């Protein structure tokens, strides 16, 4: 608890904040005595997992939590001395955009898609200028036209400040004409246009590639130094906290379990939950199977029985030889077409029986196209994909159908990849029905096997008759894995299987994958943008950039001794949860 202070540097003081939310099951308390204070120049990281209340804490500062269903039970949120919970909506509007700027997680959904970015920035600038005319640099009583022109100038200046090239022209572009990172910059420019004292950033880099994330973090860091802002940085990524933040508050189940200067908390965590959270982030020194998940807010017990040691990798099972994939260009006029887009340019890899092969790349690099080509969902333009001696492109649809039982995939989003109207039993049994020819199971046997698979992935037979919405993200991903295992495959494509999950759940799923590989002798083709995860689980790794393989080799080699510039850049951009190792703190311009 922070005693009320008269310190003029203190921007925000949250004291014993208690918030309840009404739901179908009655009122649930979602914030439980949250207290902390942010001063100018401080970057407070709020870390926690899904449902810990970190976003609600951020929204409360601007009082954007709808009431009802929300209800403040107790406590105060003082922003520069005034309790925002007691202000009128009109007063709150004088704070929002002017004194408190906010940016949110997904830059693609946070800009209005049907308006030019200039229009959106100008409206925010005009709003802020109503409260503080100096923002536009105009005398009071300037004409509407003059204010508009001045607002546009301010918008362009702010866009330049956040690093948008050709800002004067780009104000006329629509959001979809910007990349994800550029959109987030636009949103940051929008949040900064009113020259706020406090910036609330809710997972602003979660939807971005690591290299772009590094740029955005540098940008925020620079802005704090320049304008002496206070920042509330909400994230689930401990690496980002270690890089950027001066202070951190760890939230669990609506309460802050530990807070303080970032080095103290991350280096010497006192609370079990903080320790657990730190332990579930894959680190370079960890061997496979050493990650520990969290259970009920504390470190989970060690795995009951350690899995048998993995067999050494065998010969090549999947050979990708000089694969090129072109997509036809966009139509131009009646007959003309733009030149074809090369999604994969001469990609060659060998995956050995029983190993985990990692593929790392950023959005648009061709990762997903490659998996679609392997699964024969796309026809390759040239090259060969040979699985266990069989050229996949040369197979008839019937032969390919039989092969599909051997090559299965686990998808990224466990919320979207399970049919919400099917029971878990039906979801897992579906591939067994499709591959009835190979497996030849009766419906009764399918149910038995579904139950067996559920137990293998750490769920119980009681879950068979439930529906996907009754499960958490991690449990759903386990169901997705069970479904992939149903037709007894030997090759599993894992397309970002943990990127939608919290770190502690990610740790559990990674351990499960490790365990299954040892027991079943599976080969993994593991696609991820998370280098920590790749390093933890993969024996060998390939880096793909603009459809081209830029580097491949033994994982340890690539990580400790990267040869390509791209690999070096990616490794430098990867946020390390050790505050002493963070590039921003080292003040060395390692990043782009």
């Amino acid at each position, binding site marked *: 608890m922070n005693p009320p202070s008269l310190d003029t540097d203190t921007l925000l003081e949250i004291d014993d904040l208690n918030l309840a939310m009404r739901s179908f099951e009655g009122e649930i308390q979602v914030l439980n005595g949250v207290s902390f204070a942010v001063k100018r120049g401080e970057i407070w990281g709020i870390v926690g997992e899904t449902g810990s209340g970190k976003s609600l804490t951020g929204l409360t500062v601007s009082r954007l939590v709808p009431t009802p269903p929300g209800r403040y039970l107790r406590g105060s949120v003082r922003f520069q001395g005034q309790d925002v919970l007691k202000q009128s909506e009109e007063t709150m509007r004088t704070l929002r955009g002017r004194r408190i700027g906010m940016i*949110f997680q997904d830059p693609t959904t946070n800009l209005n*898609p049907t308006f030019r970015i200039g229009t959106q920035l100008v409206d*925010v600038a005009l*709003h802020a200028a109503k409260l503080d005319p100096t923002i536009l640099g105009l005398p009071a009583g300037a004409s509407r036209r003059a204010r508009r022109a001045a607002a546009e100038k301010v918008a362009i200046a702010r866009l330049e400040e956040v690093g948008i090239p050709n800002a004067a022209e780009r104000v006329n572009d629509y959001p979809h004409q910007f990349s994800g990172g550029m959109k987030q910059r636009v949103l940051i420019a929008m949040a900064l246009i009113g020259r706020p004292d406090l910036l609330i950033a809710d997972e602003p880099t979660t939807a971005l590639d690591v290299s772009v994330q590094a740029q955005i973090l540098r940008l925020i860091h620079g802005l704090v130094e320049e304008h002496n802002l206070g920042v509330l940085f909400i994230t689930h990524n401990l690496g980002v906290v270690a890089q950027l933040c001066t202070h951190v508050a760890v939230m669990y189940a609506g309460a802050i379990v530990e807070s303080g200067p970032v080095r103290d908390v991350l280096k010497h965590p006192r609370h079990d939950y903080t320790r657990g959270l730190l332990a579930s982030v894959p680190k370079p020194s960890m061997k496979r199977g050493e990650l520990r998940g969290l259970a009920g807010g504390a470190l989970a017990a060690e795995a009951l029985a350690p899995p048998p040691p993995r067999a050494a990798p065998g010969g090549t099972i999947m050979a990708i030889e000089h694969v090129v994939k072109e997509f036809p260009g966009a*139509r131009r006029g009646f007959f003309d077409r733009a030149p074809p887009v090369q999604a994969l340019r001469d990609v060659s890899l060998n995956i050995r029986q029983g190993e985990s092969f990692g593929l790392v790349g950023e959005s648009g690099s061709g990762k997903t196209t490659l998996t679609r080509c392997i699964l024969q969902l796309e026809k390759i333009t040239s090259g060969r994909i040979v699985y266990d001696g069989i050229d996949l492109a040369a197979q008839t649809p019937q032969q390919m159908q039989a092969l599909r039982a051997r090559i299965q995939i686990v998808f990224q989003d466990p919320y979207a990849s399970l049919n919400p109207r099917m029971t878990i039993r039906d979801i897992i049994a579906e591939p067994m029905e499709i591959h009835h020819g190979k497996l030849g199971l009766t419906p009764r046997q399918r149910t038995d096997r579904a139950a067996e698979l559920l137990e293998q992935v750490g769920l119980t037979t009681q879950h068979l008759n439930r529906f996907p919405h009754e499960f958490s993200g991690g449990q759903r991903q386990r169901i997705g894995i069970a479904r992939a295992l149903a037709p007894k495959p030997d090759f599993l494509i894992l397309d970002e299987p943990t990127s939608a999950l919290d770190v502690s759940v990610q740790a559990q799923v990674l351990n499960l994958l490790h365990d299954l590989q040892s027991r079943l002798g599976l080969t993994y083709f593991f696609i991820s943008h998370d280098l920590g995860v790749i390093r933890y689980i993969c024996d060998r790794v390939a880096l793909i950039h603009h459809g081209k393989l830029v580097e491949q080799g033994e994982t340890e080699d690539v990580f400790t001794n990267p040869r390509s510039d791209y690999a070096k850049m990616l490794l430098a951009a990867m946020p390390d949860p050790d505050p002493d190792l963070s590039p921003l703190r080292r003040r060395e311009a390692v990043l782009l």
Partner: protein
Amino acid sequence: MVGYILRRLLLLVPVLLGLSMLVFAIARLLPGDPVALAAGPNATAADVASVAREFGLDQPLVVQYWNYLTGLFRGDWGVSIFTRRPVAEDLAAYLPATLELVLAAMLLAIGLGIPLGLMAAVFRNKWPDFLARTVSLGAISMPRFFLGLVFQLLFAMWLGWLPLSGRFPLTEDPPPQITGMLTVDALLSGQFHAFGVALSYLALPAIAMCLSPLATIMRMMRASTIEVLQQDYVLTERALGLSQKLILFKYVLKNAISATLTVIGLYFGWLLGGTVLVETVFDWPGIGLYATQAVLTQDFMPIIGVTLCIGAIFVTVNLVVDMLYGLLNPKVRYQ
């Protein structure tokens, strides 16, 4: 963009060609003999044959179709067997009346439906929303001709505010013919008294007709506004302090209106083809009445003419709707 419009207009040709062929064939396949009907109850076989020759109906179907088609290019839509008047003349007289009615109904439906939908969404699950939803459900459920009768009873018979039926009183001078739509013509020629009279005749049928599109537009608008209000960018706009008014009428409206636009386009065609009940109740001299008469007497040429007209208007309206999508959504690219 211009290329796209031209291509879409070019597409009108096969659409109308196919439509004319279809209607031509179906009209001939109907049981009964229109020629005998037109020749009168006491006509001899020779009389019937001579009428058939007069209208070219003794020739093979393909030749008849070809003659019709080439006639169209000369502006000749054929001649009604029943009234013996050129179809083109009839259409010129009746189509504007229907267009006026449909346009007035759609203007009312759009003008009221969109703001009511927005209001219902903003006050979701509060009394303005319940009221708007209840009334719109009633409006959708009530048949148009019945509403028309109720309106006549209420406003014309009991209250005496508006005329009972018809389009313009015989006792007054109509405005000079420009578009054929009396209200528009009156305005164009500056005859405000005639405008008032024409409007008083137009009011009841237009209101009776607008209610079901009004209710649909309102419900669509409500649903899409609720969806847009839950978008992330609306939260961002609020978090940056923009006023509710600006957010709703500028930022939300433009995103929410696209889905409604589709409904507007579809309803336009639906109203054009479905005016007959309202026209009957209000004795409105439009193509609905004209087409019904033609169907009852199996008079081919008017049937085909009306069908082609409605088809052409429908395709054009939907082209306009597609163009509007492009204005509303910058991601739509015309190729």
